[in-house]
């Protein structure tokens, strides 16, 4: 994935190796949380990493070419979530229920990272929200007195080209000044249909942040008051922060040697 510029997904990559060649860690996942192996709550696999040195096709004589490691982000958490997370999720479910939205429809997954017992001091709560209920969820989070996430700190995008059907993620960072809490909302949409409802009706501050996310990732925020590019020129082709968009740059000659641009250098995968 780090060498996304080199084209199709694994077209000319080494073929998967038999178990004895692939090595002892082939089934392990690269994960930031020790809940990775917990039964029933599989981590969110977003990519599979092959080899060690980012070399595709040929040229890798290191012997590491057959390494296969799934890349997994922390998966759904199990109850109790720890700290104030349980209470907040319960209140949200109740508020959504009053508005006629089933919690399980609106929130696909509750992620607590890292989830430890006792609760980790730096644990973060992420709600993976279905896009059709995003506005209802953020309105509930803002307005209910027990939630009161009144301050939005913007939107950022992430592009996972190998996560088929969920390539584009929009991530919302909400803060409750009243309660001193933070929550993250995450919405995943397919590249083929990159539409997310705009949250500007709930958080006017997301206006420019959504424009920025559109500009850099091509996520279309429906019902945004003016979804124009904000950083790139209006007639710019493509969306620069996507993984299939090259970094650009020119080779630099230094003392007789040529240094290639950063995204075409050999790199560690």
């Amino acid at each position, binding site marked *: *994935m*780090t060498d996304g*510029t080199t084209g199709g997904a694994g077209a000319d990559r080494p073929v998967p190796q038999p178990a004895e060649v692939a090595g002892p860690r082939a089934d392990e996942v*690269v*994960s*930031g*949380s020790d809940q990775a192996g917990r039964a029933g709550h599989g981590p969110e696999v*977003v*990519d599979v*990493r092959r080899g060690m040195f980012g070399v595709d096709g040929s040229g890798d004589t290191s012997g590491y070419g057959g390494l296969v*490691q799934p*890349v*997994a*982000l*922390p998966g759904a958490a199990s109850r109790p979530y720890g700290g104030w997370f349980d209470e907040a999720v319960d209140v949200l479910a109740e508020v959504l229920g009053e508005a006629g939205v089933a919690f399980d429809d609106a929130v696909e997954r509750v992620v607590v*990272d*890292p989830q430890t017992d006792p609760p980790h001091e*730096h644990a*973060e709560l992420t709600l993976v929200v279905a896009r059709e209920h995003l506005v209802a969820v953020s309105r509930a989070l803002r307005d209910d007195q027990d939630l009161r996430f*009144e*301050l*939005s*700190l*913007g939107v*950022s*995008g*992430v*592009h996972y080209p190998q996560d088929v059907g969920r390539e584009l993620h929009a*991530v919302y*960072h909400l803060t409750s*000044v009243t309660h*001193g809490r*933070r929550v*993250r909302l995450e919405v995943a949409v397919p590249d083929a249909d990159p539409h997310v409802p705009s949250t500007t009706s709930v*958080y*006017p*501050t997301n*206006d*420019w*942040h959504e424009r*920025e996310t*559109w*500009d850099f990732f091509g996520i279309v925020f429906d019902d945004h008051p003016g979804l124009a*590019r*904000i*950083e*790139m020129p*209006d*007639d*710019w*082709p*493509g*969306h*620069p*922060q996507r993984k*299939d968009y090259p*970094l650009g740059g020119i080779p630099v000659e230094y003392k007789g040697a040529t240094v290639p641009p*950063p*995204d075409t250098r050999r790199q*560690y995968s």
Partner: protein
Amino acid sequence: MTAPAFTATRPPTDDFDPGIPGFEASGGDWDEIAREAVGEERIVVNMGPQHPSTHGVLRLMLEIDGETVTEARCGIGYLHTGIEKNMEFRTWTQGTTFCTRMDYLAPLFQETAFCLATERLLGVTDDVPERASIIRVLMMELNRVASHLVCLGTGGNEMGATTVMTVGFTGREEILRLFEAVTGLRMNHAYVRPGGVAQDVPDDFEDQVRAALPKIRHYLGQLGDLMLANPIFKARLTEVGALSLAGCMALGVTGPVLRSAGLPYDVRKAFPYSGYETYDFDVPTSTDADCFSRVVLRLEECYQSLRIVEQCLVRLRDTAGAPVMVADKKIAWPAQLAVGADGQGNSLDHIRHIMGTSMEALIHHFKLVTEGFRVPAGQVWQTVEHPRGELGVHAVSDGGTKPYRAHFRDPSFNNLQAVSMMCEGGQVADVVVAVASLDPVLGGVDR
């Protein structure tokens, strides 16, 4: 890469109706242009991006009716350099070299926020040595004073008060000298690193700071004398650029502008990091919600920052000789930096060790510097209190040696959204004052 399939929006040339006359004002007499334009129903003045009063390359589009601004819009992006994209192609340690260049008046805040985020992904937050956190806090608070001095100085300059500017920059110079003594550079430091800081402060650093503090106080006092009781200054700023608490919250405006509306929200108090909960300082607020109160708040914040600096100096003396980088050799660079005759570089002892006696140490050094360390997959959101508001870092790792995504929520970027609300209905001359009170730094806005 294959050619993109579509373009985002119409080319801008389609927007212009050839029937609408345009007038260009570059150093001309506004009266003449206005006379020429009489009869036009709508006058749109384009201010910037190369206007000296817009704090860099900010473009303001003002629709005016006489001297009254009826609509104000911002155009940004003139300083976009793709720093976030570049960071995806460098190691986590190299990331600080890039993010320090975002908001160039407050580089140490970006560095610290990024490193705190990286440390949380690594799970080493609690292992960062206390002395490293003290140095970070000390450098950030000095940086806050330097940044506020530029804000107040350039704000004064934009209203024609050149002396305010010269005093502000002279005071900042004292702080930049301290930065140079510690990091070797006046800006673009890349001094804070994941796990700690690049090297310890010089032995006589406490003396240097103690010598500089009275001078900084002197210049802050001069700025206060020049501005706070000046009838012209007060007339230009009082009840100008108002933004209520409701407006601030809706627009996500944080920092001095939010505190001028009465909410004492400061990340250092609300979500402490780097041990801020152990320092004694106040968060000044006001309820006037105008440009003048923001000047007063920034001056007061400078004095509060100096209070923290003095507490840091005591703690630095108590922790002299303690490590400034995590003990984990898989994260901390093995190089021990030293000040040599030719400036700063690796210590000769370390070079002798890796070149002469230990091949493994050489391999380890080479691997760690070129490949970098691997960061467990996951995402993290870390904010710090930046001079202009809440700076957020959204860092995503895929388990590799480079950030999969590093997003910076820059307070200047967000706060510029408030320009419309602060300027519409006011005078043209007040636009400059209102923008200066937001203190946007376009390097941070555009990244």
